[in-house]
């Protein structure tokens, strides 16, 4: 038994696929690469493949992480090169390494996601409106976003998960950068942060045309040290 941790991307080519679609595509790549993947026991065996955090439809990522359990040891370079050659367009394998098999699950350790959003400025909007929106957001004690789902309406305080939003602007496009904390209580989606900025602080952004990119997933400890899941242990 061996546990492999990989860092992969989700590129523009597959921006609009869901997390489930993405996971299935990686699983099929592993089978095409003929890696000796381990399967769960039971009626309906599943490949032992686990991701750090789900990525929404319409969101791309520079750094996603997945753990793959292998039935037997295999040379790392060999694993990486076979998998690389079988990945779909838009998925690049950046790094990979074997980790101790007792390592805590990715889902349980990753607690910070960093996003970058590029969104068109609304026609006729002032530069000062943009800066003002961010300033007010960063100063607010509480920013309420109402999440509506088939399960019902829920109020979320966006500030609980987002410390600061950085904003810049050039050529009619606004660039936002922020981190969201992933806590046992949950987290906030990047599209929800943008919605809160537009709805609560009048950020003059054409939010339907926003392009969201997750630029990193991290494990942040009590001292505030930020590590990627590959730098752990």
């Amino acid at each position, binding site marked *: 038994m061996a546990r492999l941790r990989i860092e992969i991307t989700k590129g523009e080519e597959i921006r609009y696929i869901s997390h489930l*679609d993405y996971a299935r595509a990686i699983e099929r790549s592993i089978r095409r690469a003929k890696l000796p993947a381990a399967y769960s026991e039971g009626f309906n*065996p599943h490949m032992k493949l686990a991701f750090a955090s789900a990525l929404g439809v*319409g969101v791309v990522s520079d750094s996603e992480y997945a753990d793959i359990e292998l039935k037997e040891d295999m040379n790392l370079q060999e694993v990486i090169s076979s998998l690389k050659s079988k990945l779909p367009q838009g998925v690049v394998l950046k790094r990979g390494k074997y980790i101790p098999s007792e390592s805590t699950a990715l889902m349980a350790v990753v607690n910070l996601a960093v996003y970058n959003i590029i969104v068109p400025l609304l026609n006729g909007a002032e530069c000062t409106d943009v800066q003002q929106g961010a300033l007010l957001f960063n100063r607010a004690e509480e920013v309420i976003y109402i999440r509506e789902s088939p399960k019902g309406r829920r109020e979320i305080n966006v500030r609980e998960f987002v410390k600061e939003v950085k904003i810049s602007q050039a050529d009619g496009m606004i660039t936002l950068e922020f981190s969201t904390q992933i806590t046992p209580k949950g987290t906030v989606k990047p599209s929800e942060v943008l919605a809160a900025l537009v709805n609560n602080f009048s950020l003059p952004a054409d939010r339907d045309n926003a392009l969201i990119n997750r630029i990193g997933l991290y494990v942040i400890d009590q001292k505030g040290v930020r590590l990627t899941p590959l730098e752990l242990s």
Partner: protein
Amino acid sequence: MDNVEPRVGHPTKLVMSLGRILVIFSAINVEVNMVVFDPAILSRVTKPARYTGNEVNSIKKDHSQVDVTVALALPDVYEVGMSNLGLKIIYQILNNRPDTAAERVYTPWVDMEAEMRSYNIPLHTLESKTPVCNFDIFGFSLQYEMIYTNVLNMLDLAGIPLIACDRNENHPLVIAGGPSVFNPEPVADFFDCFVIGEGEEVIEEVVEVVAGWKKSNKEGGRQGLLKRLAGLNGIYVPSLYQVTYNDDGSVAKVSPTCPEASPAVTKRVIKDLNEVEFATKPVMPYLDIVHDRMMLELFRGCTRGCRFCQAGVIYRPVRERRPEKLLELTQQLVDNTGYNEISLTSLSSADYSHLSEVVTSLITRFKSQGVSVSLPSLRIDSFSIDLAEKVQQVRKSGLTFAPEAGTQRMRDVINKGVTEQDLENAVGAAFKSGWSTVKLYFMIGLPTETDEDIEGIAKLAYKVLDLYKAVKGRRGAKVTVSVSSFVPKAHTSFQWFGQNSTAEIERKQRLLKEKLRDRSISFSYHDARTSFLEGVFSRGDRRLSQVLLAAWQNGAKFDGWSEHFKFDIWMEAFKNTGLDPHFYTNRERSQSEVLPWEHISCGVDKAFLMREYDNAVAATDTVDCRREACSACGVCPGLGVEVLDWGVK
């Protein structure tokens, strides 16, 4: 090169505010149009991955480097279109040719269609995002009649004139294949030509004709191309035929109007399936599609001879792939797809001569690669149960059987070839092996049917419940009775039969519903009005093109999807065009009548179908020629092919 000449749908016309068209000029000054959806559109529609492509095994070629470009369409939503095996095969065959680029396009779902119409975004392919109007060939697979309006919708979204004779030499050649083209007449006005029968070989001939015509500087214009195509075996160019009608509305004569068109077009058939390309490198969808697994075609054709079944006639004769060929194809599929399930797809997979051997080899060879096997259709016999047990070693999900009719007399009429005892043995074996959920398929509205036959369906369902109790000593079986309404199809021995009226079908459905009042039985049935309309187009003639056009203009689309089916629009369309739908469905036709599809031949003699109709009325059986005596249907001598079965005859 032809590519440099201006084409319909010139980019300047396509510039828009939200949906963007990128115009890229390559080094040799060939223009390439690429449609790009704005993020706002893709975030608004359901399942945007239906429209974004980039799937594994999809093939993008530089259009300036090929002679012929083909847009392959199935006029239904992505998840349905991507599940079609025939198109996967054609896609692979065409893209294997260095001179051809084949790409895919499916019907945008209604939400995306609304976006495309409001921002003037043309229909385009998934691979290169090129507008379909820029392709040389726009090919449709017609799998069932209820998607015809989607063809019109797609042509319209592509900016291509709907009526074939309104197109000029710069428009794509609009063609169709698939089972529905065995009666192409109701859609004759919309297509330039039809490919009758199996497409593996003829599609390459079509491409070569188009390439040659382009190289000849489009000699003779569009008409010149159509005449060249009409010279190919299996190609039917409807505009080269004239149809005359009798006073009573029936067809008097269908005659060719030029020497290139032959009086009858006979289907194409592959003699040996081991020798042709198979879809071993299918495009891998990201979305969960209808048939999201490897598909392995064991054989083509079925000669069980069920008299209602069109597939059992038009795909004759039976031709099996060799067991070793099947294992070789499976290995390629596993290597190229990464799927974990393989489905054995044939008209009745359990009839494959070496089925047990092949299934055992598949299980032992591919289990370690995480691959499981599934059998979609089961025969009603205990052999099938043994096999089902082999493939589903742990999961005991439901088993499906198709007795088709409720009484032995009725099953003899349709030549189903199974007895009540067969069903009891099979279901009994299934219950003993641990299954408890059984689905039973039936049809109502069959020739000679009486209420006793309808009640027989209910009796059979109760019998299955009792059988479970007898085997297990307690109640606990779940039986689903699924009943469809019989629609007579062209080229079958029931092609002359007057379909039951909607009122009669609904009466029979009510009768059955009253009889099936047990909580362990669930009953499902089809909308009688959908079957009625399907019946009209299954056996209709050329004049129905006007009805399709009128219905589409009034908003008919996705008619096979119950939530989009608008019966009133259809009735209005019949009224406005002065055509009586009952003339096509409910009228018993005389055997001497010229049928609208009589100039399209699948190789089976009309005399055989007539004999079979008499046998049906007499409830006499006809044996399967696969391993027993030949019933002289005429297909083997007519097409110069023979049955290929690796078992003992």
